[in-house]
């Protein structure tokens, strides 16, 4: 137990570290992260990314499925899982006349779960919720009352983080229920630098959002080969406080226009999210997941700059295959995963939804012939937006690497 406490202490320490890094480093370079509180993260724990970003009905005592808290209720004994992930996003942006590549990446997630008894498991995780990282250069805007234009550059960075406490429990042999409590927090920085003639204005805004969100989930085994999963994340609103500093250069003389802190922002509404999924297990070594997710952004009646929020549907399909879990050879235990998804998008700009479609592939490498720990690598190819009109088409390649360590301290060494 001593080493357990030590580990928890290190974990807390590391969570602090994560918090700091998630504040300074960007996980995206998407210009679409200008809108709202950023783009939904590409970062994930466990396998979900490789499975077309779905898996509401997946459960397994050997990995953390943060998509459904009910999966935490999987029957197990003496289980402790630690999952840490790293994300690299290589994106190529294109509009009607330009093309550019961007890269962003960082340590991205950390979570652990530990079972309380045979039927219930508790977990804590910290992951990004949304990511912000954009730089828009050379925005031309009309000076009202004249035929001239002024030039501005807008830079944004930051992230909202999801500190999540999850509990799941088996109720009957084939029914698991779970709930999670998320503390969403983070800072989004935006700097706009405008230039008109020899004068300039710099508006630096640092917006701090925080709020809590509840989610409940269910998983029901309809038969030995079919499982149904349901998750709903309840609507919430994030309160925002902003620090703002406005500086200008008037006739070559710099001066501070305003320095205000804790300006109350209109709270940002996150709507109800309903997720359904099934897991099909036709053979012992093949799992297929089919998922649908809907988020009712329309009901929040929010709009942002040039875009408005619309209901978002995500359809996904994924599969995982391995040769033989009980095989004697290492390669027989390697998990192969693939998936695809279509996201209708939550934004509509110029009457066009910013949808995205992607493919994913992944591999799970056991960290030992008898180990249930895995090194998961997934690659997602995702294209978002379009080059129509003013829009930007993004081709995003995401590489997610995560290590899922299971039971490494409960295993007694055979030979001392």
């Amino acid at each position, binding site marked *: 137990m001593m*080493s357990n406490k030590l*580990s928890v202490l*290190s974990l807390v320490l*590391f969570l602090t*570290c*994560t918090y700091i890094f998630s504040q300074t*480093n960007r996980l995206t370079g998407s*210009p679409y992260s*200008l809108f709202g509180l950023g783009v939904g993260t590409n970062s994930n724990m466990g396998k979900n990314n490789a499975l077309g970003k779905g898996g509401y009905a997946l459960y397994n005592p050997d990995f953390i499925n943060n998509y459904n808290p009910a999966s935490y209720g999987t029957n197990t004994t003496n289980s402790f899982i*630690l999952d*840490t992930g*790293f994300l690299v996003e290589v994106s190529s942006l*294109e*509009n009607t006349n*330009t*093309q*550019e590549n*961007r*890269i962003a*990446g*960082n*340590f991205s997630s950390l979570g652990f779960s530990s079972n309380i008894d045979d039927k219930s498991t508790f977990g804590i995780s910290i992951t990004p919720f949304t990511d912000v990282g*954009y*730089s*828009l*250069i*050379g*925005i*031309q*805007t009309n*000076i*009202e*009352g004249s035929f001239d234009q*002024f030039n*501005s550059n*807008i*830079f944004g960075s930051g992230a909202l983080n999801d500190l999540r406490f999850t509990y799941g429990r088996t109720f009957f042999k084939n029914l698991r229920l779970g709930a999670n409590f998320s503390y969403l927090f983070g800072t989004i920085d*935006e700097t706009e630098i405008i230039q*008109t*003639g020899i*004068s*300039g*204005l710099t*508006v630096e805004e640092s917006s701090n959002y925080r709020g809590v969100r509840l989610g409940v989930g269910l998983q029901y085994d309809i038969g030995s080969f079919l499982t149904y999963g349901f998750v709903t994340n309840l609507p919430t609103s994030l309160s925002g406080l902003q620090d703002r500093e*406005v500086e*200008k250069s*008037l*006739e*070559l*003389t710099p*001066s501070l226009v*305003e320095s205000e802190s804790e300006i109350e922002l209109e709270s940002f509404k996150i709507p109800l999210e309903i997720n359904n999924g099934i897991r099909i297990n036709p053979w012992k070594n093949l799992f297929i997941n089919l998922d649908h997710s809907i988020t009712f952004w329309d009901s929040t009646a929010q709009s942002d*700059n*040039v875009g408005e929020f619309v209901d978002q549907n995500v359809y996904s399909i994924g599969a995982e295959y391995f040769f033989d879990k009980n095989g004697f050879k290492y390669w027989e235990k390697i998990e192969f995963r693939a998936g695809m998804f279509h996201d209708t998008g939550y934004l509509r700009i110029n009457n066009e939804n910013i949808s995205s479609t992607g493919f994913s592939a992944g591999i799970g490498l056991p960290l030992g012939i008898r180990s249930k720990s895995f090194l998961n690598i997934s690659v997602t190819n995702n294209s978002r937006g379009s080059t129509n009109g003013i*829009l*930007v088409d993004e081709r995003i390649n995401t590489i997610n690497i995560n*290590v899922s*360590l299971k039971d*490494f*301290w409960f295993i007694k060494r055979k030979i001392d």
Partner: protein
Amino acid sequence: MGRPLCILLLFATIVACSFDSTDIPTLEVGQDFADSNVRVFSIDTFTVEVSTFKFDSLITSGTNRILFGQYEDEFFGRVKSSSFFELSAESYSIEDDAELDSVALILAYDKYHYSDTTKVLHVNVHVLEDEVRIKDDIFYNTSEIPFESIPMASKSFFPEPLDEDSLHISLPLEFGQNIFDLILDNDINNDEELREVFKGFSIQPDENDDASVLGFSTSVDRTYVRFFYRIPEEFDDTEETLDLSIREFAQEPKIFNNIQSNVSGTVLDTLTDREINLLSTDSDNRSFIQSGSGYATRIQLPTIKSIFDIPGTGTILSAILEIKPPPNTYNDLVPIRDSLNINIIDQNNTITEQLFFGGQPVYGIIDEEKEEFNELIYQIPIGVYVDRELNETTIIDDAFIIFPSEFNSSVDRIILEGEESLDFSTRLILTYAVYDE
């Protein structure tokens, strides 16, 4: 057993640190994709109140210019400048056997000239009856010192301020001989003793001169009364000179100019006190500036605070005042300066400070784009002033004034269109940014 965890944490920390993405992409994707969060307005509908006022007096001592001449001005009548100065020598020693040949006043041109230099100008050299000395050591453009009514010397000449180095005026030998002998006899050994017999000169134009106004240098080695004398030698005489120059030490002024114009019978006649403002709407939609005599254009922005009627929180990014001299009010003889000084004044028309632009004094500059069409327009950046006016909580009735450089030591005039002129109305162009709606 915590070892793998520790190793993992170490690994992750290194990875996190080694991937610091502080460099920001700078390529231009998305410039049409979003609007600025800031709205910028250009507004030129503010009232600009243009008026003329006159300084009661301008300080003209402490100058390095002898301003002299007279001409008839279309707007300011007879413009006259006369100069008063005291002369002294560096040392008062001459060889005992020296013999005086001649004496002359030599005035070195400093290139400043205004109005028609092709006309004959008369210079009359008068001897001062009182010393060039005043309480507080300040002389004004209105100051005078009594001088002998009959000039000691006079000269008619065609000014050559650019082509010639100096103007030579011969002085009577008796005047020179008197001083020369006193120095020889050691009766004059210092400035004080010289002052008892010779207090200085005033140079005055003829009453009916209509020519030009000229600037002469006050430099000790260029402008002086020169005694040409000889020391007899066995074969060939040695020629020597003794100079009396304008020597200013410490705070005591030894030269000033009296600069006057005659506006009786014109609209400017009402400006008898500094605190009177003559609105351009009451003076043919024009405002008048004249160096030397003290006329200046005063600009007030009475409606500037109405910019706050624009909803949202904002700040100004620039303020340009455009003023225009009517094209028929300047020409090669009476040119206008290409830059103007801007000073802030209080409600009593007292200058409180000079306006700055990026650490340098603000100047009104002629807009070269519009100059192509023979339309000179001054553009004056007054953002710093407007910004301060806007941020003042109490209403202070201040304004700013416009006048050319060398305001105390020249006679340049500038006529400006007023705010309701049909030809060109003076206007203020503000750029205002709203960053929080």
